[in-house]
């Protein structure tokens, strides 16, 4: 049996533990350990994608307990892709933080690693209760990271974030209890099987459990009406942390898509229908938020919410062919939003006291390079040709033939253009006097460039990218394979 699949959980766990033991604040050692772990994750991510790409499932039984009784990790194309995406995002984010932001509080690096462990675990697990545990791991690390660097605004946003997520955890447990009470199992594949033959009396309870799961995942993914925590938390977090958080909303979406794909039979139609409308409302409100943002960080946070609305509406529209472009768009939006958060951090540093507030301020040192990067990032995130956002959006428009989706997606593009061009012209052109800010260092620029460069790459190899996405979607459309791999041949 191949043991690579457990590595994305173990590597950051070990690195995080080592970093906790390092108490003498040797920053170079801490940075080296963190970056080494991220580089290892990147390599393992490539290995896993390679392993999953032929379409076979890898099932890893923890403690070698047989499937419905023990906890399993399951590697398929979707989870492998998400693990790789996490590593691709985490490395530049940590590189950016290692230029000085990590000194603002103790234990930044340890928390960063535990966050990665939680995210990777949530992508790989095949057990619903284990999913809850990994959610908690990534949440408690994110609480620490969101507050990293202190400051009243951060504490206020952090308090709301923590309380909301604790309530969310309670709801998650209720949903798990209901699922266990009705099906007698928490293994995702086994739940999928048992859900087919539920006694009539239990169907309602099971539907309630599923609806509760949508609420919980919607909270993590920042779906209307549960997204109000996101802009404040993300805009106030340290840039590198905000960039890493770009994947956190996608964890919610991942869990949603996974459960949606597996448990097909008795979903009450209202669940999917509600998600579709809520996705559209999220998309619309995020446009208003982006237009009204007073800071660049807030505008980017609303762009994250926009991508969440776009994706959840696409996933729940009920068109099988929309899966592939939605997955492509998911990867694209994660990377670009991460890049924009880092860029907002650079802009704030370059302007000194004024920060990233959208008011006339001192000229930014090194604004030539920054404005070019901002321009590229804006084009990519809005979805204008020739960058990857355009390909993703065209794919979505082609496969979700709903007039209201078309209107909202195009209006969202327009709002993005207005919001970002207003932000860009204020930040880079309406300047008053000399800056007291800091010139962006080469390493920070490299981190931004790393993430931004993936957008033209995804556009250049767009055909291949879409084919990959199609392969992932193909596997998602056949839950039988997943169930069979986990429970063995006799189950279905």
């Amino acid at each position, binding site marked *: 049996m191949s043991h690579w699949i457990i590595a994305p959980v173990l590597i950051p766990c070990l690195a995080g533990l080592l970093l906790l033991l390092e108490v003498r604040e040797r920053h170079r050692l801490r940075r080296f350990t963190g970056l080494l772990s991220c580089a290892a994750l990147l390599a393992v991510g490539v290995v896993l994608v390679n392993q999953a790409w032929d379409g076979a499932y890898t099932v890893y039984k923890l403690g070698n307990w047989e499937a419905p009784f023990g906890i399993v990790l399951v590697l398929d194309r979707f989870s492998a892709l998400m693990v790789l995406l996490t590593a691709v995002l985490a490395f530049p984010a940590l590189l950016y933080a290692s230029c000085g932001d990590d000194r603002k509080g103790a234990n930044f690096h340890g928390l960063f690693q535990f966050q990665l462990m939680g995210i990777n675990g949530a992508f790989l697990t095949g057990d619903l209760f284990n999913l809850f545990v990994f959610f908690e791991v990534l949440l408690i690390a994110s609480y620490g990271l969101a507050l990293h660097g202190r400051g009243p605004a951060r504490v206020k946003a952090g308090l709301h974030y923590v*309380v909301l997520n604790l309530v969310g*955890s309670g709801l998650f447990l209720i949903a798990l209890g209901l699922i266990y*009470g009705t099906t007698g199992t928490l293994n995702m594949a086994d739940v999928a099987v048992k859900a087919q033959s539920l006694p009539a009396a239990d169907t309602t309870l099971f539907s309630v459990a599923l609806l509760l799961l949508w609420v919980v995942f919607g909270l993590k993914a920042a779906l209307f009406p549960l997204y109000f925590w996101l802009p404040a938390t993300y805009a106030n977090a340290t840039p590198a942390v905000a960039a890493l958080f770009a994947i956190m909303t996608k964890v919610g979406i991942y869990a949603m898509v996974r459960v949606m794909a597996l448990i097909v039979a008795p979903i009450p139609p209202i669940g999917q229908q509600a998600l579709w409308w809520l996705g559209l409302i999220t998309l619309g409100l995020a446009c208003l938020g982006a237009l009204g943002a007073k800071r660049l960080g807030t505008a980017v946070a609303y762009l994250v919410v926009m991508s969440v609305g776009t994706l959840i509406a696409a996933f729940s529209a009920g068109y099988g062919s929309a899966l592939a472009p939605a997955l492509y768009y998911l990867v694209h939006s994660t990377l670009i939003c991460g890049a924009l958060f880092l860029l907002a951090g650079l802009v704030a540093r370059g302007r000194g006291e004024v920060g990233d507030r959208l008011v006339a301020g001192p000229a930014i040192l090194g604004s030539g390079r920054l404005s070019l990067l901002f321009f590229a990032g804006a084009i990519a995130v809005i979805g204008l040709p020739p960058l990857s956002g355009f390909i993703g959006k065209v794919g979505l428009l082609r496969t979700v033939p709903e007039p209201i989706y078309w209107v909202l997606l195009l209006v969202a593009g327009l709002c993005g253009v207005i919001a970002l061009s207003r932000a860009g012209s204020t930040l880079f052109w309406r300047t008053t006097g000399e800056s007291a800010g800091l010139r962006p260092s080469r390493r920070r620029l490299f981190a931004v460039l790393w993430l931004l460069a993936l957008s033209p790459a995804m556009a250049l190899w767009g055909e291949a990218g879409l084919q990959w996405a199609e392969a992932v979607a193909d596997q998602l459309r056949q839950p039988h394979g997943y169930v069979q791999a986990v429970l063995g041949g006799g189950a279905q």
Partner: protein
Amino acid sequence: MELLVAIIIGVLVTSGVYLCLRARTFPVVMGLTLLSYGVNVFLFSMGGLKMDEVAVVGMSENPTDPLPQALVLTAIVIGFAMTAFLVVLALRSQGEHYTDHVDGRDDVPGRKDEGGEA
């Protein structure tokens, strides 16, 4: 038995939700604690309620389901850690804002936006 447990869960969750909606951090912390108690008891009862039976297969004819007990144990540990963190965060918020209002607002008595306390 079932009725009793159901009533207990209901009372715990109701009180928890009520306290969570208050505008001060301390009631919110208490509310979250009560809420997690309610959730834990709920989770516990999901394996079916049985009186005077052990949770070990083979020790009795009709053993209690051991899995919910393991789940509750995990949930309690996690909930405990989260509550501890939240208490520290609430103290921090008090220190930064000089008020225990959840939005960090000024503490002027009689103000409209003071939530339920005015």
